[in-house]
């Protein structure tokens, strides 16, 4: 069985790299991006199974990147990640627009794996 490809987008390189390592240890292919624009380009190039997208990022933030990817592929599985409890309008809007899930930092590896299993076919 072909291993799943995960796109991680986060501007914090420590978070990005350690998470990448952990997921690779679990047997996933992991590609990374440090801003929303890059994440969109990576998605278009590699068409990953699941995207973990930090909301607060430079150049293009998580929400905008989410919409751009959704425009490109409306079936994209995108999970927004955040450092704080999100309950604002923008989140609600994204959620209504087939946002797959939300993950709060710091991540629990089991939770991430569970989400990947749940959202990828």
């Amino acid at each position, binding site marked *: 069985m072909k291993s799943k490809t995960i796109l991680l987008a986060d501007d914090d390189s*420590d978070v990005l790299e350690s998470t990448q*390592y952990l997921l690779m240890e679990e047997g996933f292919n992991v590609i990374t991006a440090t801003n929303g624009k890059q994440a969109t380009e990576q998605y278009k190039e590699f068409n990953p199974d699941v995207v973990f997208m930090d909301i607060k990022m430079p150049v293009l933030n998580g929400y905008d990147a989410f919409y751009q990817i959704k425009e490109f592929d409306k079936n994209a599985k995108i999970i927004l990640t955040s450092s*704080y*409890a999100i*309950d604002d309008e923008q989140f*609600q809007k994204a959620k209504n627009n087939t946002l797959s899930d939300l993950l709060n930092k*710091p991540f629990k590896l089991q939770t991430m794996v569970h989400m990947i299993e749940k959202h990828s076919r």
Partner: protein
Amino acid sequence: MKIQLQLTLFVIVAVLAAEITIGYIAFEIMTAEIRRNIELRLENNSDTVIRSITGLIKERLGDMNLISDPNNRILADHTISIEDKIEYLRTIEKAYKVYSSFSLYDNNGIKLGDTRNIMIGIDESEEPFFKEAIKGRIYHDKTSVYSKSLKQDVIHISGPLFSENGEINGVVTSRFSLYKINPILNTNEADFGNMKFDLISSDGKILFSNYINNNKKVDLTTLPQDEIVLTTYDGANSILVMKKETPYLDFTGSDWTLIAHVSEEQAFEEINKLGSSIFIFSAIIMVVSAVLIRFIGKRILSPIKILHDGVTLIEQGNLDVKIQVKRNDEFKDLASTINRLPEIIRQLVSLETQLQLARDQVKNERLSAIGGLSARLAHDIKNPLASINNALQIIKKSSANNQIMNREADRIDRSIRRIEHQVDQVLNYVRITPLVKQETTVDNILQLCLENLSIPDNIELEQAGLENNIVCDLNKISIVVSNTLLNAIQAIGSQKGKITISCTEKESQLIIKISNSGPEIPNEDLTRIFEPLFTTKMEGTGLGLVSCKNIIEQHGGSISVSNKPVTFVIVLPQNP
């Protein structure tokens, strides 16, 4: 007391006082005037009467002078018979109409003839009128004498009769009847009015009265001469004057005294009548003014009720009140002032609302600034925390067999969770964000909580009636339930225990009860448990329950806590 009544009483008292004052003054003035008038009349009339009586008697003496004059040939002529002489005297009597009779006597006092033809031949030689006249003098009685033959009081006026050669040979006597005074008193009847006159002799005998006098005698010494006095006379209070003379003449040839008097009762009869008409008039004025003031009062006061009703409406919050007073006086001014009030109140209310809005805005801006800051802080803490967490997991994987390493890794793990929890609590408290409502069930809320919260094995979780629907902010309410569950778990600790979560529905409100078997909360803490920064736990922020309270209140509900067993009761409107 009602103004109407006050006004009526005031007017009645004022009218009464005015009436009494005016009445008293008028009465006094009139009484004085009447008294002065009476005194003047007494003075004048008594003088008139005295003059008239004196004149009358003087005329009679003049008559006698002429009759007994030696040159009067008729009485001196011995050839003329007694009958003719009497006839002559009878013509005089008839002419003057003041005599009762004339008599002729010889020089021995024997009555020779009489105009009434009575008692001819009797001897009256001892009578003063004969004894004085025979001496050649004109005589008259000083006081009246009761004439037995005439059966009335008379005054004898006598004079000598002369023979042709000039010797005294008899006496002629006239009897002047006191009744003849009556016409004098009656001629001026209008002037005299109710004035009474008593003619009194020097010994106090009443000679004549122009009314029925019950007195027989008058003690003249008790009355002052020529002075108007108020005294008891003839059994009544009378204004009285006693006179023996006028300023010009005395009672010629007599010692008479005239008493002129008016009884007080009669004198003031008029004024008493006036008094009673004043009283009636006053009573009428009083009644009229009372009626008038009732009418006027009603007219004056009727707008007060309208104004009162209007103001009451305004007081009750009706700001569309327009008071209509159909008047052109101060009430109209008052009404228009009151009519301006709602606008002023409206302005004040709007000002107050704006102020409140501004305050809220300032507060919100401050809170959102703090919220923003906190979010940034949380981000800045949680990102490194995420990499620490990831790093820790990598280390744990790569040193799976190192016991000490694992123990310390777990310690770091717990510390990470604590920091995470604390940051979340602070964020929940400071970031009051709008509610994002959705329809869900209590069970959904609980499941969301349990995703992030594991119930330890020593604690049993009992659930009842959680299928109730509710419209709420799922994430926020789950924070509340999570906090409450976490408190319960911490309270029970490592002992065996039970947490019960139940839900009932009452009057479109959901009542969620979360109770635990842990130790009871001290009473003094029960009231403070929802205060910010209040905590009894070492790891507590003091923000958990106050955040819960904020969230529940944001939903229009309430949260409370009680003991036996420790139970948090959350009341939420099902569809806020």
